[in-house]
């Protein structure tokens, strides 16, 4: 399965596209897509203006980021793994 992610225009935060065409900071609210539907939704997201910067498709496996870029997307989802005081709020 796929989901659409992007960064929010105003502050750059990671967001996911919902089935209602809104954007959420929660991956569990993202619309799961496959095949042509994923490409069509992505084209739609790319054509919209206002909230998202650089939308793209990511792989989803077991409700989590999957595929070859799973670690990158997991870090985008949960923040830096560096610990200390630098965990995202």
């Amino acid at each position, binding site marked *: 399965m796929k989901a659409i992610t992007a*960064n929010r*225009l*105003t*502050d*750059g*935060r*990671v967001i996911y596209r919902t089935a209602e065409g809104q954007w959420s900071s929660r991956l569990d609210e993202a619309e799961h897509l496959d095949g042509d539907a994923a490409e069509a939704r992505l084209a739609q997201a790319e054509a919209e*203006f*206002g909230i998202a*910067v*650089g939308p793209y498709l990511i792989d989803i496996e077991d409700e989590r980021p999957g*595929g*070859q*870029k*799973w*670690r*990158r997307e997991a*870090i*985008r989802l949960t*923040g*830096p*793994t*560096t*610990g*200390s*005081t*630098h965990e*995202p*709020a």
Partner: protein
Amino acid sequence: MYKYDAYDHALVRERIEEFRDQVARRLDGRLTEDQFKPLRLMNGVYLQLHAYMLRVAIPYGTLNGPQLRTLAHIARRYDRGYGHFTTRTNIQFNWPALVDVPDILDHLAKVEMHAIQTSGNCIRNVTADPFAGAAADEIEDSRPWAEIIRQWSTFHPEFTFLPRKFKIAVNGARDDRAGIRVHDIGLQIVKNEAGETGFEVWVGGGQGRTPRLAQKIRDFLEPRDLLSYLTAILRVYNQHGRRDNLYKARIKILVEALGAEEFGRQTEEEWAEIREGELELPAAEIARIRAFFDRPAVSKAQPVPVSGKPGFAGWLRRNRRAHQVEGLSSVVISLKPVGGTPGDITDDQLDIVADLAERYGFDEARATPDQNLVLPHVRNEDLETVWDALVAAGLATANAGLATDIVSCPGLDYCSLANARSIPIAQAISSLVEAEGLAEPVGDVTIKIDGCINACGHHHVAHIGVLGVDKRGEEFYQITLGGAFGNDASIGGIVGKGLAGEDVPGAIVRVLKTYLEIRDENERFIDTLRRVGADAFKESIYVAA
């Protein structure tokens, strides 16, 4: 320290207002991201994994108290309470909102700072020896020359759209602490047989996916000719640099393709056309800029103290550097607490460094290519007071130049270009080295880590380099040995196949232990490595992997 004149202030103010309008037009849809991206990059604003990142320029790494306090304020109010010093002696904020960036730039402008020349294919922030104006081995202060280059290169219309980014370093000491051989242009201040000061000119160095050491194209350049000669080099590069291929666009590729001799010949040919013109530096202008960089004076020189406090003597031994003025010392403020994030500093720590710089440091601090800070001028009688304050602030780690003083790029925890994480590897190595009690016995060694081949963490020129790569979704790390940054600059060689992340700290520790076993008396790590060769360490890397 250089002070802005009316022209500098106007230049920065105009740029902020221009960018404020560009941000507004992006937010209301009049600019697309494709249109906006090059504009934001020209103002130091990147879009990384989690957020926008603002890279603030610190020309030749020099900061004063008010500037440090402003960086603290930005970290506190607009970020998450910390900033990150980079190997180019800049500072990055990892979490600013785009809507806040124009206001952040306003704060910076009030203390004569900006984010110009921190991105794009222009001449980037010029770097210099972080101990310039202080080092005991100095031939001449490199900062006035770095400032002259900064003023000449800022918004230079001919060099704003070069084939690729362009980095210049100036070193004025006998020890090269600016890394002139891994820069597009490296300038080494020298004296000729007549005792006159000038520049050796090196070109074509750089790291990234094609690491190359710069080659010397001129033994002695008179100071008045500095800008005309730089212009000639850049014109040859601008004319012939590979704009067709991003990976072959740096000057190092051109110098290699032409050969240093031919590149030098073309430069001299171009220079002959322009050297007598308006680019010749007037002596009065050189003197005017030099006057901003006074050497601090001490009325009654005191010796370096010997204190009974636990830890102070060790900190002096590792983090103090000899000063050219009797009665003064330079000290390294390590931003490498064991297990911490290399180069990170909190808002409160920035305020404390500002206090120390103002009270005890002639209002100066420096950022270093090793992601540490320096107080370049501290009276010897104030060293213990400074150390006490640093201890209280968690900034007194006595590890400058040791195996726990690790350089690391932000890696996959922040950077959109990275393939693998680097900070957690640095944290794990420094924790294990500390647990094994190896840092002091091993002594001087450089360990530098990158999360991709762009090499912002300088792994190519580390005695022990670590390069993260991605193999089908898993992180692996290549170990390089034998690199060096400085007079004996060299590019490290890959030892063998990549290791899993969890195996890297153990491998590094085994390399350090092997060194302790085979070194000759008083032999540094890099000298042992060069004597016996990298293969002597190979088994220690792979034995348990």
